[in-house]
């Protein structure tokens, strides 16, 4: 191959030849970067811009300065959504310990364990739409399995999705199901890579059970924990599908989160307040930015260390 190539490159104009290696990455990057700029980066900037306008999607946008933001300050629905977002953030993190627990439970070598592992992972593969449907039947006040079970133990019925204080927790529980499966698979892979010598050494030192887990295993699972943390936070802030399917934000808006509220304000049947929706999105983005900053910072530390 090189025989054929050599004369070719000699014939090539010297500038290209000299700069070929410097040019190449940009040519490789060009399509991807263009796409990404066009569909992701610019829209983020546009959303920031739009949040200073009043626009119904039909006429001309009207510049209103910070009006959308001052209205947000005084908007109860926004307050409820923001608060729910924090509930999602904190409670969704339960997927991490739960995933670890299941991973520890399944980290054995018995017959059929591979099949068990994949079946446990199953909930993550099905779409959130289906998960939402399944759980709304589970919670149904008249025939849901939950109330059958409660009734069996002699408790009264509970209308989880119709109760403004319970509804968000009910949806988060549904969301935890696939998310726990995800964290589980991360930890199973992580456990595979735990250094057996260290474990044995610790055993000789008399460590076992929880102490072993805390001082020897978990530190070694750091990379898995980091990724589990990242995907769980992102999942929590993006929560939309389940809410839309299970409650449509109700009852009377008590299960909204920012992402759902902005959709409602901007694009739903009674919405089309694009600027206001954009302002909500900006707030959500700023919350996310804290985490993005943290992720990038830790990646940067790693890159520096890796060099």
């Amino acid at each position: 191959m090189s025989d054929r190539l050599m004369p070719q490159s000699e014939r090539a104009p010297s500038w290209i030849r000299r700069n070929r290696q410097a040019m190449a990455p940009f040519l490789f990057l060009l399509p991807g970067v263009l796409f990404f700029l066009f569909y992701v980066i610019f829209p983020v900037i546009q959303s920031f811009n739009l949040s200073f306008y009043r626009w119904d999607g039909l006429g001309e946008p009207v510049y209103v300065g910070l009006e959308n933001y001052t209205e947000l300050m005084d908007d109860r629905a926004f307050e409820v959504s923001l608060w729910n977002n924090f509930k999602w953030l904190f409670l969704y993190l339960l997927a991490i310990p739960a995933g670890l627990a299941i991973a520890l439970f399944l980290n054995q070598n018995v017959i059929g364990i591979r099949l068990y592992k994949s079946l446990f992972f199953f909930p993550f593969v099905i779409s959130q739409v289906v998960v939402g449907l399944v759980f709304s039947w589970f919670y149904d006040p008249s025939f849901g399995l939950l109330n059958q079970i409660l009734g069996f133990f002699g408790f009264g019925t509970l209308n989880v999705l119709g109760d403004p204080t319970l509804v968000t927790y009910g949806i988060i529980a549904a969301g935890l199901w696939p998310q726990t499966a995800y964290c589980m698979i991360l930890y199973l892979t992580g456990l595979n890579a735990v250094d057996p010598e260290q474990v044995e050494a610790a055993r000789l030192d008399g460590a076992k059970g929880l102490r072993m887990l805390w001082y020897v295993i978990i530190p070694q699972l750091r990379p898995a924990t980091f990724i589990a943390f990242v995907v769980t936070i992102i999942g929590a802030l993006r929560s939309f599908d389940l809410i839309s399917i299970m409650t449509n934000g109700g009852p009377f808006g008590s299960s909204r989160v920012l992402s759902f509220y902005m959709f409602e304000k901007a694009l739903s049947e009674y919405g089309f307040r694009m600027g206001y929706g954009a302002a909500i999105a900006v707030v959500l983005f700023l919350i996310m930015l804290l985490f993005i900053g943290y992720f990038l910072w830790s990646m940067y530390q790693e890159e520096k260390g890796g060099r």
Partner: protein
Amino acid sequence: MNLLKGTVAGLAMTVGLAASAQAAELSGTLKIFSDMSNPAPRAVIEQLAADFDALHPDLTVELTVIDREAYKTQIRNFLTANAPDVANWYAANRMRPYVSAGLFEDVSDLWQEPEIAENLASTKGAMTLDGQQWGVPYTYYQWGVYYREDIYKELGLEEPKDWEGFKSNCQKILDSGRKCFTIGSKFLWTAGGWFDYLNMRTNGYDFHMALTNGEIPWTDDRVRATFAHWRELIDMGAFIDNHQSYSWQEALPFMVNGEAAAYLMGNFAVAPLREAGLTDEQLDFYQFPAINPDVELAEDAPTDTFHIPSGAQNKEAAREFLRYVVSADVQTDINGGDKLGQLPVNSASSVDDDEMLNQGFEMLSSNSPGGIAQFFDRDAPAEMASVAMEGFQEFMVFPDNLDDILNRLEKTRQRAY
């Protein structure tokens, strides 16, 4: 009198004939976007398109049927980007955004034509904004109380004529271990129906219209009076439990199974109730009774409509299609029991011989002196409607939150209008 009517109708016929003779020369394509996506309406619009196509040999009719729910958001896109010649929509304030943005064609000229002016007079108001007409109606339907006749008989109840009778009936139904009313408020608008009736019966049509037009504060004492009446029912336990978890269809089984005795709904609820097995002996209808005797009765009767987008290419054919749709024969046909099963908008049409439709027609034409409203979310602008209906749902679950709810609605009113 009769003779006169006949002459007018005859005259209208001739004008109509003249119009269609002229229109035989229509050519090009007529693009129709329709939201009539449920099975029965879909058959109707497909037939309308096919018949109109056959009537005009040089004209090609292209029909696109879009899911009814999706249509509500999609209309914004196609009106600006790629306008058809004819599009479905709803009457009253629901037209406002498109009228203000100049996206609907002014069709006041059609309403000057004798046939339309004469025979569609009753719906003219609903099609009028800023003194012009922006489309034509093709169907409307009554709202009212659909109830289990057999349960009423069993308990010895009569159709109530006033608020006291309404409540005492309800008490007897409750005493028999049933709920008075089924409702599914998950998607909010069903609660809007209750508000419409209670408010129109308490304060009258004009007040209701002023309120939905943003001219009256929500914290007004008269509004509170409406909610006080509502609260009487809520405190009795008149409504089914957990209604906030159900859609209107999911609330139907309560009535079918006899766990609830009645349903305040539009006439479209009749078909699924019959399908679910209720016979004509079991199902009947009454007009929402008077609450304040000094107030004239007024009704909700939502009207569905056809419009010509300003960006339409073939406006001549579109106008002819609108004339065709509202003509007496077509109106009789498409609103028949085997088609839409609703009320024709043309007064020269005949109403299908159906128990519910007859009662509804009777009610709307002779016993609704106060006026005819469209529906809460069509009379009030979108933003007000969504916040208000959410408040209604909350009120039905937590009536104690009323002050809070009204303050919130008032804040929205000050912003939205």
